Structure formats: structure tokens, C-alpha cells
């Protein structure tokens, strides 16, 4: 059961995040110089190809929930890479000396203007790349822009605050090992066995601040499923946080540090599998981008929890009892999990096994609309009206299915759905894959 007071407390905490940020005092020249330095360093062959290939057809706008929600041409995805394109044209393109004569250098005012474009008005959902006739990975370019702005001290204060907290104290929203233990103790009091800091285990379960504070049922559900399967697993105090605010804010150093904490703990206990919670961005961050210090691939398997349960059900190792017949549900693909992660079939396999009527949204899977709250956008206070415009597309998409329940497998999406539902008095039930599966475990 979700504690609405905790939900509102969480929203209140977000309102106060800017007060906690400690922006670096930098001159305008330093900001531009730092941003350009990141842009130069990050412009590899792949990004340069993306920057040069754009034909300015504008199709990407067709796919962007922020443009479609507002019809504001400033939010055209292609335009979000303009500063990067100019720096590349002037400094590293084939005709850079010529380009410098006609291409103006970027300014601090432009960097400040681009903060809204790449943080508030882009969730790096990657839908634009699905329609781009040139096949440009716009989300990757936007992420480089975030890195440049973070280095220039121009990340939104909310994300800066959380990133600084995660880098400094190792906590997120004040949640560290002590708060984790408190939550686990509360769940244990309900009779759920939850191993913590076992020295060796086959599976390392990772959680996240939102589950520790708000979606404790998701954490409990995961524990119940793992116990039901009789698996040897543990959580680790020193590496339990899946959320990676380095990735979201644009700090590569912090991103690597947050990933390293998880990797080190998994290696320390000899885990063969790391199971990530219902947290969208954590999946590509570890599953697809995670590496060992020496650059080698991770020596363990990384699974999203919805991927894990779907796989276990498909393989016949996990059985569920039939659920409420006639209940109509739909599934929302989190962008980072589906489009950027490839986890699309497994959550559906799990939901189909529950015996309810699963109706797909239109479009769905890799073409699904983003909910508007991903990639840290949910934490940016001033972005709330814009986010709500994007959410309205999502809401209509869900409404059109006629489902009474929308099932998600990303806590960020779930937060955004809850906020949107509260604002719109939207009555559709919002549920989680892992919680639904756990509710239908055989007694």
C-alpha cells in the first residue's frame, strides 16, 4: 500500500532541492570553456557522424512528446543538438577553418537557454531516433549536452543537489544504509525474509531510494519472489542504490562512481546475477554501459526485475495463480527499459501469465510514448507544466485502451503517473509488474 503522505513528502522534498545545491562560482568564460571542453572530448566518430548527418527535415518533432504537447518549435529534438553541432563544425569537422568564418561560437547565454531544452524538455527517451530518416541518435547527443552543462555549472539546481549528495554523502534524498535497514526491518516485521550484507550470494538485489521510501511493496514483492524461488540472494548496504544521478545530471565521474559501487559489491560477494529494481535508467546504465575498471564487460548478468520475473515465468520455474478474470490491464514501456534496454517481451510474459486481459497501447513497445518524467525531468520543479503537457499524451494513450489498470516497471514513470493522476483526478489504477506477480504467488 502506497503511503500518500510519503508521496507528498517526497514531492515537498523535491521543491526544496534547489536550496541544497551548491553551484560552482564560475565566470561566463569559464562556463563556455568547460562546456566546449566536454563537447570536444565527447565528439567521437559516432557522434560526429550523427551531428553531420542531420538534414533538418524536422521529422523528429513528430515523435517528441514535448513538441507534440506544446507545438513549440524550440523543442524540436534536432535543435537540441545545435550547440554541439556548431562546436564540432568550428573545431573538429573537415572544413573547420572555413566553418569558423561563418559559424558563430557558442555563448554562455545560449548554454543557459539550452538548459531547459536538454533537461526540462528532453527525457532522452530516444523516440525521435525511431523516426529519424537518417538514423541519428539524438538522445546520446542530448546526454553529451547535459554533461557539458553540468561541467559548466549549469545543470538544474535540483539535479545538481541530488548529484552532489550522491557524490558527497553517498545518499540520495537522505537515504543511506541506515534508512535501508529501517525499511528492511519494517518489511521483516511483516514476515518477509530479506537477507542483507550476506558475504556470498548468487544474486545481488539492488533497490532504490524511491522503493525504500515509497514503493516498499515493490521491494517486498521482489523479496517474496526470490524467496519463493528458493534463490540465494542478498542486498548490500554499500551498494543498494540503483538510481544514478550522475547519468541523469550529466556528471560522468559520478555516473561511473555510482556504477562502480554496485559492481564492486557484486564482485565482492561473487554474484552471478544482479537484479535491478523497477528503475528505468538504472538498467541501461549498468546492463549496457557498465564495465569493469579495465573496460572489460561485467562478469555477471544484469537483469531488470520485470525481466527476471518474466523470464522465470516463461521458463516454468515460477508459477502464478490466475488473477481477477475480466480485469483489463495495459502495460507502459519505460523508455530506458524498453527502447534503450530491450526489455519488452518479459514484462508482458509476466502480465499475460496473470490471467488478465492485456491490451496494448497504440503505439507500443519500442515506439511507445514517454510519460514525460524520465531522465530526472520529474525532479525539475519549473518543468512541471511542460511535463504535464507530455503526460497528457500518455494519459490519452492509456485511456484509449479502455484498461482499468496501467502497469509500469519503472519507479520514475510510476511517480510521474501518480503526479499526473493526482493533478487530473485520473482514476485509472497504477500498478507495478513485480507487485502484481507477487500478489499471485501460490500460497
Amino acid at each position, binding site marked *: 500500500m502506497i503511503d500518500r503522505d510519503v508521496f507528498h513528502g517526497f514531492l515537498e522534498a523535491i521543491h526544496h532541492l534547489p536550496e541544497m545545491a551548491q553551484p560552482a562560482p564560475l565566470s561566463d568564460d569559464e562556463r563556455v570553456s568547460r562546456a566546449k571542453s566536454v563537447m570536444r572530448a565527447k565528439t*567521437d566518430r*559516432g557522434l560526429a557522424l550523427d551531428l553531420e548527418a542531420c538534414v533538418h527535415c524536422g521529422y523528429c518533432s513528430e515523435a517528441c512528446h514535448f513538441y507534440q504537447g506544446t507545438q513549440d518549435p524550440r523543442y524540436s529534438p534536432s535543435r537540441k543538438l545545435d550547440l554541439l553541432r556548431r562546436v564540432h563544425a568550428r573545431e573538429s569537422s573537415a572544413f573547420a577553418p572555413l566553418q569558423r568564418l561563418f559559424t558563430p561560437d557558442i555563448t554562455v547565454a545560449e548554454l543557459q537557454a539550452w538548459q531547459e531544452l536538454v533537461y526540462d524538455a528532453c527525457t532522452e527517451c530516444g523516440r525521435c531516433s525511431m523516426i529519424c530518416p537518417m*538514423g541519428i541518435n539524438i538522445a546520446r547527443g542530448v546526454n553529451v549536452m547535459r554533461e557539458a552543462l553540468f561541467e559548466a555549472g549549469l545543470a538544474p539546481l535540483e539535479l545538481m543537489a541530488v548529484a552532489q549528495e550522491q557524490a558527497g554523502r553517498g545518499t540520495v534524498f537522505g537515504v543511506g544504509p541506515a534508512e535501508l535497514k529501517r525499511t528492511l526491518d519494517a518489511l521483516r516485521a511483516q514476515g518477509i525474509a530479506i537477507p542483507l550484507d550476506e558475504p556470498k550470494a548468487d544474486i545481488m538485489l539492488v533497490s532504490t531510494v524511491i522503493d525504500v521510501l515509497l514503493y516498499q511493496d515493490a521491494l517486498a514483492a521482489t523479496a517474496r519472489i526470490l524467496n519463493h524461488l528458493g534463490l540465494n540472494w542478498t542486498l548490500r548496504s554499500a551498494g543498494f542504490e540503483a538510481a544514478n544521478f550522475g547519468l541523469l545530471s550529466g556528471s560522468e565521474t559520478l555516473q561511473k562512481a555510482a556504477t562502480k559501487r554496485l559492481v564492486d559489491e557484486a564482485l565482492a560477494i561473487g554474484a552471478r546475477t544482479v537484479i535491478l529494481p523497477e528503475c528505468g535508467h538504472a538498467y541501461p546504465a549498468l546492463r549496457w554501459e557498465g564495465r569493469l575498471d579495465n573496460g572489460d564487460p561485467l562478469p555477471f548478468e544484469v537483469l531488470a526485475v520485470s525481466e527476471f520475473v518474466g523470464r522465470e515465468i516463461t521458463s516454468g520455474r515460477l508459477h502464478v495463480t490466475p488473477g481477477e478474470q475480466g480485469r483489463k490491464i495495459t502495460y507502459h514501456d519505460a523508455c530506458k527499459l524498453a527502447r534503450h534496454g530491450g526489455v519488452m517481451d518479459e514484462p508482458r510474459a509476466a502480465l499475460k501469465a496473470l490471467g488478465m486481459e492485456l491490451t496494448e497501447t497504440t503505439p507500443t513497445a519500442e515506439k511507445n510514448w514517454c510519460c514525460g518524467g524520465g531522465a530526472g525531468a520529474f525532479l525539475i520543479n519549473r518543468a512541471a507544466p511542460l511535463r504535464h503537457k507530455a503526460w497528457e499524451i500518455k494519459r490519452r494513450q492509456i485511456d484509449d485502451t479502455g484498461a482499468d489498470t496501467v502497469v509500469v516497471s519503472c519507479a520514475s514513470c510510476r511517480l510521474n503517473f501518480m503526479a499526473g493522476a493526482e493533478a487530473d483526478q485520473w482514476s485509472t489504477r497504477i500498478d507495478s509488474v513485480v507487485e502484481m506477480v507477487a500478489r499471485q504467488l501460490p500460497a
Partner: protein
Amino acid sequence: MDLLDWARGPLLTGAIAVFVAGVGWRLFCLWRMPPAHGPGAPARHAFGVIDAVAASLTRMVPRGGFRPSATLVTVNPYLFHVGLAVIFFGYAPHIAFVRRLTGLSWPALPDMVMYLAAALTIVSLLMALLFRLSDAVLKKISSADDWITWTITFLPLITGMALVSEPSAATLAHEQAIYRGPLAIHLLSLELLLVWFPFGKLMHAFLVLPSRMQLATFFGRRGVHS
């Protein structure tokens, strides 16, 4: 030497040299950039070069599942791309021009088909210009490159149409070009296009395949159909 002799001789040679060297230099400069990090994680599904090429080719087909923009906006680029290809590769005098340069030739399409293709392409390019001038997004994201490229693509069409006064067989039967001035202008417009090609977005002709393959591989390794 009159203008046509210049246009057929040193200026054409120069334009082709700029085109080849420019395109080559631009591709070389891209290739010499530091490579992207190799994939760290094992692929969900094996995804090789053939898969990437196949995905690149299927990307030519309009994607479903997106907000339908005006049908014309989606159809129009197909019209002028196909039209330009038909005109360049299908018109008998153009084939003769290529044969004179390279020795290669192929059967021409009937003149009527060419006239229709040229008319459709001209209308299509004018529509493209209209969209760029009137659509809020296109206006916002357009750069000088877009306007220059449109103009330079349009000029050979217009100057070429100005030359058409008789069936292509009759044109080719003349021992000497009868409209030397207009033909020189037409050739010069082509040479302008060749010279501009490496510097602007016409380069997408060479970048489209690697760019699509790169994205297809990124998604394909993750098991995502792009």
C-alpha cells in the same frame, strides 16, 4: 574557347575534382575521429553488419506508430529524391554525358517519362521550399545550408528544362550543341552543385548508410527493432 567549352572542359574537371576531393576529405575526417567506445556488454541478440545494412534499407519505408504529419510532407521527399534519380540516370542526353566522361551507358527512359519526372520534381522541390518557409519547426531549425542546398539542387532542373525543345533523339543527333549558351549555363549549375556537395547537407547521400547502420547496431544489440 566559348563558355560551353569551358563548362565542358576545365570547369567540369575542376568541379569533379572538388567533389571527389571534398567528399573524400570529409569522409576521411569523420573516420579519423576517435572511435566510439566499443560495446561493453554482451548483445541480447547477435547483430552483424548484414543486419545493420538490412535495417538501414528498411528505414526507407515510412514508420508506422507516429503522429501522422500531413501526408504530403511525408510523401514529398520521396518524390524529389526519386525524381532527381530518374532524371539524372534516365534521360538520354544525361546518359550520353556520362558515357562521354566514363564510357559507361545504359538504356534511357522515354522522353515522356522524363518530362513527367522533371515536372513532378520541380513541383516537389517547390513544395519542399514552401514547407520550409511556412512550417514553424522547419523555419526554426533551418540554416543557410538548407537554403543554399535547395537553390543549388533546383538550378540544374530549371536550366535543364530550359534546354528541352525537341525529342532527346534529335538533340543527340546534332553534331554540335545548338544552344551552346543555355547548355553551358546548365552545365555550370551542375558544376556548382558538385562544388557545393561536400560542404553542405548534400553529403547525406554518403552519410545516410553509415548513420543508419550505427543506430541500427546500437538498438539491434539491445534487441530493439529500430
